[in-house]
């Protein structure tokens, strides 16, 4: 009897530890950001100033950089990821599917600095000499693809991020598709569906889980630091063009933390961390709402949020 009770309390304490750590992180970050919060207030989020000498700090370029690089990553990774998950789960011969999935899972375990080096030495020269000139020549009427082809910049960061998060999208979506009941496909086929229409039914049934996979990928993209720092160019400017260099919240912290000598400077960087923390929470909350809104809150399919 007492053993049950002790066991229950032990597990309860362990379970509580996780939210407690999260709360402590939040508390410490908020405390560190205190001086900057008091000096700049909400203006911190809308100012584009970043002048350590004059001690004027505004995080908008970094907020923008984080959102845009992650948006590029999602725009590339989600369609590719869902496409290959559907192929691996529904169309590929089972053995091929298992092998390819294993290789894709390996991709997820490559350290991010390796991706950064690849982005810097392989992707950047290619973007500079081939892809970006082509983009300016053919779709250069869009502000998104104007300006000098640097090679490094927002586009490079977005592509590297996409490659880094695509394994998350693929492997989770594939698992979810494999977990959808066979009976749904049979029902669709028995009603005179083509194979493609039956697969569409399965994908639709797996939608909450696939959305969940995309959310997880987005979370990783928002916080990714090392690879992005290496390929984004690190300037605190907001440019309409994706070819231009920029910076993200994570990259500016990584770049400037060691040299942040002033108290306010350091505090401003910690506040950026706080904003990043809040952003990921908000994105996750919105994504969850989206899942609920698009599925009517059903939880019938494995992996629903």
């Amino acid at each position, binding site marked *: 009897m007492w053993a049950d009770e002790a066991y229950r309390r032990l597990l309860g304490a362990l379970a509580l530890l996780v939210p407690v750590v999260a709360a402590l992180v939040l508390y410490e970050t908020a405390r560190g950001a205190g001086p900057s919060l008091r000096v700049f207030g909400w203006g911190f989020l809308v100012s584009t100033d970043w002048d350590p000498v004059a001690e004027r700090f505004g995080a908008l370029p970094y907020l923008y950089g984080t959102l845009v690089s992650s948006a590029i990553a999602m725009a590339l990774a989600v369609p590719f990821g869902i496409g290959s998950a559907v192929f691996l789960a529904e169309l590929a011969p089972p053995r091929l599917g298992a092998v390819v999935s294993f290789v894709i899972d390996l991709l997820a375990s490559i350290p991010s600095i390796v991706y950064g080096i690849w982005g810097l030495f392989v992707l950047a020269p290619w973007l500079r000499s081939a892809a970006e000139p082509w983009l300016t020549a053919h779709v250069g009427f869009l502000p998104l693809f104007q300006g000098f082809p640097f090679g490094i910049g927002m586009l490079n960061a977005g592509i590297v991020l996409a490659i880094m998060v695509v394994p998350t999208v693929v492997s989770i979506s594939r698992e979810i598709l494999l977990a959808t009941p066979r009976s749904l496909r049979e*029902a*669709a086929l*028995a*009603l*005179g569906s083509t194979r493609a*229409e039956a697969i569409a039914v399965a994908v*639709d049934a797996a939608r909450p889980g696939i959305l969940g996979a995309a959310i997880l990928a987005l979370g990783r993209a928002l916080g990714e630091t090392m690879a992005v720092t290496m390929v984004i160019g690190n300037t605190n400017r907001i440019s309409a063009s994706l070819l231009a260099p920029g910076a993200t919240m994570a990259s500016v912290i990584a770049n400037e933390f060691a040299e942040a000598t002033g108290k306010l400077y350091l505090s401003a960087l910690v506040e950026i961390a706080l904003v990043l923390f809040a952003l990921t929470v908000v994105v996750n909350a919105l994504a969850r709402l989206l899942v609920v809104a698009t599925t009517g809150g*059903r939880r*019938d399919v494995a992996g629903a949020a």
Partner: protein
Amino acid sequence: MTRAFDLFYGAHQALRSVTLEVPSNSVTAIIGPSGCGKSTLLRSFNRMNDLIPGVRTAGQVVVSGRDVYAPGTDVVELRRRVGMVFQRPNPFPKSIFENAAFGLRLLGIRDRGELEARVEQSLRRAALWDEVRDRLGRSALQLSGGQQQRLCIARCLAVEPEVVLMDEPAAALDPTATARIEELVLDLKKRYTIVIVTHNMQQAARISDRTAFMLMGALVEIGDTRRLFTSPREKLTEDYITGRFG
């Protein structure tokens, strides 16, 4: 109907030269112990066995004068003519309306009025309309098991099939829901040709006009249901219906 139909799963022969005729607008029950091939036979009428790797067939399955295993058969079109209801209710995770409308949308029907009319008609035929008329937009998964199965029947009826195949449609349901499905089957035979697989002999006796008894992939006996249950011609049939094995 089938003529000398064989079906193999790899090296295993699941159906041995089965020949049986299914009269239209009647209920034909297929009974037999587990593994006797009755579901396999049922799934030959709409070629659902095609989904299993390594399946080979010989002989003919003729639906409305056409051999469904003839080369060049449009399987998608065949399955629109030969509907199927499965053992476990398998509604799509969509609204009740969208479930019933699924086959209609596959046919390319976009007109809202026509969709609504045909959804209502099929739900009425499946004796579900009165229970769901005011909540067509709700998820089909909120229905009870029996309601879900009737929704699956409605979904199948919506595309106006000629034949409805039922694979133990009440096996996963409680007695009340089972009784409703049975009533429904009796009602549906006015419009459709029904082939139902069941391992419940009382059910076969209650709802079918003709009964086929299968054993180990072969058709042992087929005949008028009352005759088959009261004076079976084959010793094996008699042993089975009197419960000597099964």
